[in-house]
């Protein structure tokens, strides 16, 4: 399957891969430096290189740790220890009397190149370039200091400079180059999805055709082969049965038993929230949906549209949190409200610190929902993900099949309910610590629900309505 990375994962993925490549480059350089130092201290035998061996080993260990956990403290520790190691290594190697004619030896470049290949914390080309530049400067300063204390003449180190320039070039190219075919990736994603749907549809078609064949066509053939005159009993029974089959919903059972036994979810599929999620899925976001999806059918067209746009904006925000693959949408309802919660395990933020760049959340989400009498609550902490709860008032709706009287009753009830404004709970009284950092692919929608979120489990859904 050639389903490439979606836009929002590219930066983080490339950054990780480049960091991994840098670390391996650095580790090989350090291994080379270590072996060289060992070879140099064995023949002719010297003691002065022993400290250097320890320093290189320490630097290598730190680089291995950094390769595993790319954190800021480890990056800084590596840069500092690397600078010390470079100093020790350079002064020890060049300090060997009468061995090296000048400082521009490849051997001397080894720890320096390892220092450039820091592949530090954070994703993004510019951060990578920044760390490498710090590494380059530290390496050059340490080496220059060390060389100045030896009799060897100082010459520019071409290897280190070229390595640095090359690494920076690659990082800028990979990080900043506009990916060709930004629109093509969603199109291909869509095509894969369509193909999957088509296979299922084809399966249904084949079954429907089989039934058609077994009933209609057979019956027509029986008639065509019959003798003119009164119908035989067998033919009559066959005809009766076929007509019954065609009229009944037996068909659906035959085509797809699961659909026939489960309640329809057309209300969900035609809702604006579903369409918004669908669009985001084309862009490569994996969205898990749980909860009472059908309750969205209760929203009036305007609320439905606005809620769809608000959910879309929430999901766009998730996409912008580079590196997040999944978001979760939990839909819930009670007699008065329908609520949608959008959760992600992304970077998170402090709402108080949000600047003008959070216009999307404030304008597209909060204003939009509040204008319709709904409420928006946001829980987020840096590093702990974000949860946005959108609640909209939605009067209970009666199913169309219910008798007119019952419908009228319900309409009256809805009318009497309507004037009571739905007062959204203040966000301050809701510290849903359990939901702030949502477990990935959590399926429990009711368990950790915020206090004001409706619990549909014990409230009969109004669409069930009174039985006539």
């Amino acid at each position: 399957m050639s389903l490439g990375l979606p836009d929002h994962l590219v930066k983080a993925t490339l950054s990780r891969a480049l960091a991994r490549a840098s670390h391996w480059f650095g580790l090989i350089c350090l291994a080379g430096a270590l072996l060289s130092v060992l070879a140099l201290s064995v023949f002719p035998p010297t003691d002065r290189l022993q400290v250097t061996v320890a320093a290189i080993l320490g630097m290598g260990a730190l680089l291995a740790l950094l390769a595993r956990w790319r954190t800021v403290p480890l990056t800084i520790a590596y840069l500092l220890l690397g600078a010390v190691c470079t100093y020790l290594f350079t002064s020890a190697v060049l300090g060997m009397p009468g061995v090296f004619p000048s400082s521009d030896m490849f051997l001397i470049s080894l720890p320096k190149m390892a220092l450039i290949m820091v592949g530090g914390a954070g994703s993004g080309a510019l951060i990578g370039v920044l760390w490498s530049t710090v590494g380059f400067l530290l390496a050059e300063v340490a080496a220059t200091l060390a060389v100045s204390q030896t009799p060897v003449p100082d010459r520019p180190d071409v290897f280190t400079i070229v390595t640095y320039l090359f690494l920076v070039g690659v990082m800028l190219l990979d990080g900043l180059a506009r990916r060709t075919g930004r629109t093509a990736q969603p199109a291909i994603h869509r095509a894969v999805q369509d193909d999957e749907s088509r296979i299922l549809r084809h399966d249904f078609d084949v079954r429907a055709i089989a039934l058609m064949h077994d009933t209609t066509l057979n019956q027509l053939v029986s008639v065509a082969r019959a003798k003119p005159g009164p119908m035989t009993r067998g033919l009559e029974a066959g005809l009766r049965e076929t007509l019954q089959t065609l009229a009944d919903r037996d068909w659906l059972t035959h085509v797809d038993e699961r659909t026939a036994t489960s309640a329809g979810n057309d209300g969900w599929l035609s809702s604006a929230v579903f369409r918004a999620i669908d669009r985001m899925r084309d862009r490569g976001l994996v969205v898990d949906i749980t909860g009472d999806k059908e309750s969205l059918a209760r929203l009036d067209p305007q609320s439905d549209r606005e809620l769809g746009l608000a959910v879309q904006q929430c999901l766009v925000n998730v996409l912008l949190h580079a590196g997040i693959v999944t978001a979760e949408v939990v839909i819930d309802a009670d007699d008065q409200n329908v609520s949608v919660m959008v959760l992600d395990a992304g970077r998170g933020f402090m709402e108080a610190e949000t600047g003008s760049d959070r216009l999307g959340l404030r304008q597209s989400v909060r204003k939009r929902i509040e204008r319709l009498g709904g409420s928006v609550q946001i829980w987020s902490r840096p590093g702990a993900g974000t949860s946005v709860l959108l609640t909209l008032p939605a009067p209970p709706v009666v199913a169309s099949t219910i008798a007119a009287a019952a419908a009228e009753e319900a309409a009256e009830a809805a009318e009497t309910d309507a004037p009571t404004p739905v007062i959204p709970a203040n966000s301050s009284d809701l510290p849903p610590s359990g939901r702030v950092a949502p477990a990935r692919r959590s399926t429990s929608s009711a368990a950790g629900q915020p206090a004001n979120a409706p619990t549909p489990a014990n409230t009969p859904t109004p669409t069930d309505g009174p039985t006539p």
Partner: protein
Amino acid sequence: MTRRRSTQQRLDPLGTLAAWPLAPLIASIVLCYSVIATVLQQSQIQNPLFATLAVLAMGAAAGTLVIAAQPANAPFNGRMHLVMAALALAGYLFEQFSRWGSNLLVQDDFGPVCIGFLLLALAPYRPWRQIALSGAVASVVAVAVTLPQADSFEVTVPVAVYAIVSATQILAPTAAGAAYSRRIVRSILAWQTDARRAIVARTEEARGQMARAVVEQQVAALKSGVIPFLADLLERGTVTALDIAQAGQLAADVRRTLVAEIDRTWLDTVATRERAALTERGTPGLLVVADPEHRATAFRADQRAATAALIGALCAAPGFDPHSLVVQITGTAPPVKPAPSKARPAQPLPTTAQDTASVPRLPRSSAAKPAPAAPAPAQLDTITIQAALDLPPRKVKALLRPYLGVIRVVFDNVRVTVRRPSLTIEYDSVRDPNDASAAPQAPATPATPAGVRAQKAPRQVR
């Protein structure tokens, strides 16, 4: 493709397009460095012929890299990898021979650095194991040719240090390239697993709607003819000659519809969808699919998706003539199955009772499959897409680049001809002869009721 042999290029062709400028960049670095190093170290050169050969071989390796990495030649195959590595290694050996006995330093030899750079450039295109293996082999060769030259080196350090220098120059960039390749492939595979799961879940969500649509479509078709006829018949309780004739006619109609439906391939579905999209955009069009032998059913899922996306992009392109698109599939591979209408052209529409007896036999029976032909050397299905696109050729190519990038990875031998306004895209799908039995899987997805395929006596469903 196995997981072990996955590459970024095969898994994410679009992402690899963005990395393409690195190949010519590295190739030019390699070429410039080998020329400059040769010129600057003239005094060490003993054999000018070998020195020239060294530069030429290294240049050829760089050229191989550029050619093989070009998006138009995707994917970068193992043969090109081998050719490039062999040329680079030959360049290195020639360089060492040219200065044998008077080589003052190892670190300024261009061979190891160039090999390292060239192998690093393979990162987006080749599996990490093969990159690492190439690097290991090259460094063994480097150590082997460095050790015997110990006498000529000017710095008096243990010869092991020289060997370490030459091996590190190869191994460090190679390890970086292999690590990149491994890491990126793992990330993409992890993403694809997620995406796959999401696609299945998404399809499942629409399941009910789809099943109901299928039933409604069938019932709607019957309501106009068959149901009233049968109901009327039941009411009257007698069969007339006219009824018999009409039943035969209706049976033939139903049969024809069923055959047409069951013969629809994914390509027809794509065309139908694009036609609807064109109508929605206010430019109703005519899309022609010519696949009389139903070769489309032999295409794999990724091939179907890539082709559908390409057709979609063409139809949505500015300057597209909505009446111009023709998709044709021909080929040398045996047809997936003979079209029922073509296979039995002489069969008249059943209008009499005798004829209709054979009607219920639906096509796609296993008996209709042709006997497996003797294994032909190349079993190809060739898909040709023609369209009229009123755009400058440069823009057409820019528009199609990402889609063709994907097509090149999942198909073979992609040919594109742009002669404004006409555009022809042709590509081949090589059919695996071992897979021939599994090929026509599309029409008979699992759980297909036996009634469709087997020639059993029809049964009543209650």
